[in-house]
């Protein structure tokens, strides 16, 4: 068993499960957004604004945003542990990914509640 781990949940099963669940959320959000845009041919700013003013849409979008953050972190962590062998560079890469993810989440929330 590999015991020194810096992943998301420190358990392979937990990370694997989060990866799958978040993928389903992201799929649902993507399908919804594509469907919404297809079925609203004359989409204007007002309609778009109203969509995101709705609490359920905010919950759905925030869920997708957090799912993306968790999904991206687990994915980037896996990729970095596969391909970046020098610990220092890997740590820098992972830190940059973490920071970027955090910025995206805060920025996303700000946009979402700024509507």
């Amino acid at each position: 068993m590999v015991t020194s781990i810096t992943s998301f949940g420190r358990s392979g099963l937990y990370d694997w499960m989060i990866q799958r669940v978040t993928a389903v959320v992201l799929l649902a959000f993507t399908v919804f957004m594509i469907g919404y845009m297809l079925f609203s041919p004359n989409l204007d700013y007002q309609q778009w604004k109203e969509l995101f003013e709705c609490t359920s849409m905010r919950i759905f979008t925030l869920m997708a945003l957090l799912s993306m953050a968790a999904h991206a972190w687990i994915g980037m962590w896996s990729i970095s542990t596969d391909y970046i062998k020098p610990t220092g560079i890997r740590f820098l890469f992972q830190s940059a990914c973490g920071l970027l993810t955090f910025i995206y989440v805060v920025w996303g929330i700000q946009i979402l509640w700024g509507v």
Partner: protein
Amino acid sequence: MLVSVYRYNPEIDDAPYMQDIHIDIPGGKDIMVLDLLQLLKDKDPTMGYRRSCREGVCGSDGMNMNGRNGLACITPLSEVVENDKLVLRPLPGLPVIRDLVVDMSQFYKQYEKIKPFLINDTPPPAIERLQSPEERAELDGLYECILCACCSTACPSFWWNPDKFIGPSGLLQAYRFLADSRDTATTERLAGLDDPFSVFRCHGIMNCVSVCPKGLNPTKAIGKIRNMLISQAT
């Protein structure tokens, strides 16, 4: 035909190189790659490769033939030769000792990790621990593994993390003991596999299934281990 062989003798060579050898196949027969290696060795006795049973049972002569891992002794030339050319390389990802001979230590270390023996803490019966035919059938497709390392060395996850990822061969064996009705250490075995590397580095690309000379399915076994981990989790 033209055979291009990976050559490396660390006592003489600074770096590995490919040696091109033209060879005539006697009688134009469809011989096995291992027979071809013997012909090459007759020409150049310094050629190094492993072989033992020459019938696909011992798993010694795993190598990369025209980009595909397999056992030289049960691979006919007609199956691998393209445009009258054959490229022979050692199994990818493992340190080369000499020519086609690789150092299998990392592979065996992973095998050792999964405790490849029955663990049973109940008092042994007078004669033997019996299994029903159904319980015994659970081990089919698992016990046949000969540890030739063709699968693990075809797996990119094993290439990148040979010290952490158990690899398809070791995981097939791990499931062989998890599935055994006579083994009582299921919980401990599963606890030893629940980290992000041992099992979960498998991304299911199935290179292992495609190269296994015994036609086994490590990806399926890994899926079953994952399901056992899920059902055990709270």
